């Protein structure tokens, strides 16, 4: 028997790729057991039958090459590249891209439900004579539009969060992640980032369409409209963050524990609507401590409170208002719930990594 050291290895006796074989062939190399030195002057390509096993088989029809194995001699990127890769993969999976056709149906139907009405309103501004901002209804007011897009976002997250986390766990793919140079926190950050990215785009794309469309309605011109509506961009971005984090964190938390995508979606929606029921049971202008303590757990309404705060609107008598808390408490509650979600998820996933 023979043993070797584990000092950095070179070609390992075999370094040939399809390109090299083609190059070697074009140079008249017909016997792959011979040494192919410096093909194209770029890579070492030394291979032997001993290293590759049966390296070639000559027949009357030609030569069948065993392409062997080419060691990777280029750079290895770090964890940040791995995280970026996981974000891209997560986004593709959630949207069903490069997946089976049926996986595209629900996410793209929801995207269409978010984008098409906004695009339709914009189209009307150009084709319908006398179409005004008032005619656009909630589509004409970014703050009001959050009431529509928020519910759609919740449904989108109910699908996306479980899709990002559950299949990896249930199909044993986490074992592959655990064998790669990534940690549990990298994986969770990447999945969370994919979720946040998609949900943000889900909200902001229709907003962007409406921004340009509504600006076109301004009597002072399109440029003036852009400037005027542009003042609301910070509030739109802040409210988007509140919706993404406020609705996304609970979806993520449910997906960490539930084993089936469909069940996780159902559990999440049930949780959100149950928290929404806090609005029904909380008396107006109450001073009772129990309601004050429960109010920040109003998962459904917290982003609404943040919206009212950022757009400087008259509060809609949501749960926080009823117990006498300021709307910004909703923002704190959202961040706190997101942090707790991250801690719980990490505790669960670090057992696997």
């Amino acid at each position: 028997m023979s043993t070797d050291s584990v000092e950095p290895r070179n070609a390992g006796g075999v370094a040939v790729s399809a390109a090299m074989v083609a190059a070697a062939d074009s140079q008249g190399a017909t016997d792959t057991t011979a040494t192919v030195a410096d093909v194209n002057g770029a890579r070492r390509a030394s291979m032997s039958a001993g290293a590759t096993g049966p390296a070639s088989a000559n027949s009357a029809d030609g030569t069948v090459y065993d392409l062997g194995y080419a060691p990777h001699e280029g750079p290895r990127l770090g964890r940040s590249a791995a995280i970026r890769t996981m974000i891209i993969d997560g986004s593709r999976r959630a949207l069903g891209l490069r997946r089976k056709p049926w996986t595209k149906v629900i996410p793209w139907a929801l995207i269409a439900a978010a984008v098409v009405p906004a695009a339709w309103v914009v189209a009307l501004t150009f084709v319908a004579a006398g179409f005004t901002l008032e005619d656009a209804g909630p589509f004409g007011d970014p703050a009001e539009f959050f009431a529509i897009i928020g519910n759609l976002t919740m449904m989108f997250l109910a699908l996306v969060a479980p899709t990002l986390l559950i299949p990896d766990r249930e199909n044993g793919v986490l074992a592959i992640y655990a064998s790669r140079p990534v940690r549990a926190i990298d994986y969770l950050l990447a999945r969370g980032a994919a979720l946040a990215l998609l949900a943000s785009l889900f909200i902001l794309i229709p907003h962007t369409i409406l921004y340009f469309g509504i600006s076109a309605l301004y009597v002072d011109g399109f440029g003036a409209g852009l400037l005027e509506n542009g003042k609301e961009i910070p509030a739109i971005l802040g409210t988007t963050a509140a919706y993404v984090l406020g609705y996304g964190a609970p979806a993520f938390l449910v997906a960490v524990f539930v084993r089936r995508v469909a069940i996780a979606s159902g559990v999440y929606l049930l949780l959100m609507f149950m928290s929404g029921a806090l609005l029904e049971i909380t008396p107006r202008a109450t001073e009772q401590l129990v309601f004050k303590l429960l109010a920040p757990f109003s998962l459904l309404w917290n982003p609404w409170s943040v919206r009212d705060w950022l757009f400087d609107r008259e509060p809609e008598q949501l749960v926080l208002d009823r117990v006498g808390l300021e709307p910004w408490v909703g923002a704190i509650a959202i961040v706190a719930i997101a942090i707790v979600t991250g801690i719980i998820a990490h505790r669960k996933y670090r057992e696997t990594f």
Partner: protein
Amino acid sequence: MTTPLIELDGLMKAYGGHVALKGLTGSIPATSIGLVGANGAGKSTLMKVLLGILKPTAGSVRVLGLSVTDDTIAVRERVGYMPERGGLPPDQTAADFMIYAAQLAGIPPRAARQRASDVLTLVGLHEERFRYLGDFSTGMMQRALLAQAIVHDPDLVLLDEPLSGLDPEGRDQMLRLIGRLKGFGIYTLVSSHVLTDIESTCDWIVMIEGGRMIRNSPLDALTSGQTVGVEVLDQVDAVESLLVARGAAVHRRGHHLDVTVSDGDPYDLINRVLAETGGGLSLLKAGVKTLEDAYFEEGRIA
């Protein structure tokens, strides 16, 4: 200087009150290693400790000269892993998943695409590269798992029961693939309870029984003894005692004795012992000591 592939120093792993690994100590050289043990012996636990997935309760472990606990990420950059079960997303094509697996290990996108294509060719799945992994047969899945384990060009690949669930043809293909890895400069640690598979692919053997390492040696040192089967008519006890006294290892089953000598001619020894004891001979058969023989011998001793 030769750095051992794996160094274990008093490695212990406990799950609550259950101790899965009981103070493993040893140095394993860079070669093709077979990790042998019964179900529940601690093989999979050891593999997870080597990958840094499980933290040792006590002791230390170094892989490729790196501390697994301190340099987990660096170790994982140089190690591949083929899990026993699962590991493949059914909704992704083989090509896409290989590219992804390579990029996860830090291979740049362009190189990842090339490597994915190369390893799928290597494992015989190039024609199937655009099929969804969920549509693969068991044999194809095992080959895809092996491909993902080597797609990032590791120095060491840990294969956890790579032949489980395969039909004879699939086993043969997988064994040939594993056998070729050393030629590529990739060392293997193959866990299996099918000893003939280990025998055909490995040249170093690590035996674990009940969480203890009972053997860490070259395979040929374990199987090199010359074994002869003898069926003795009478005086069996006397024949056995004298053979043992003359330095032979004897495994007795009734009147049948498997006689192994590490040095000298076993036939000559048996002839002399039978003459001295007056034992009658009814059968004399040459035998080759297999890993299975050695495993059961070692297991009895343990």
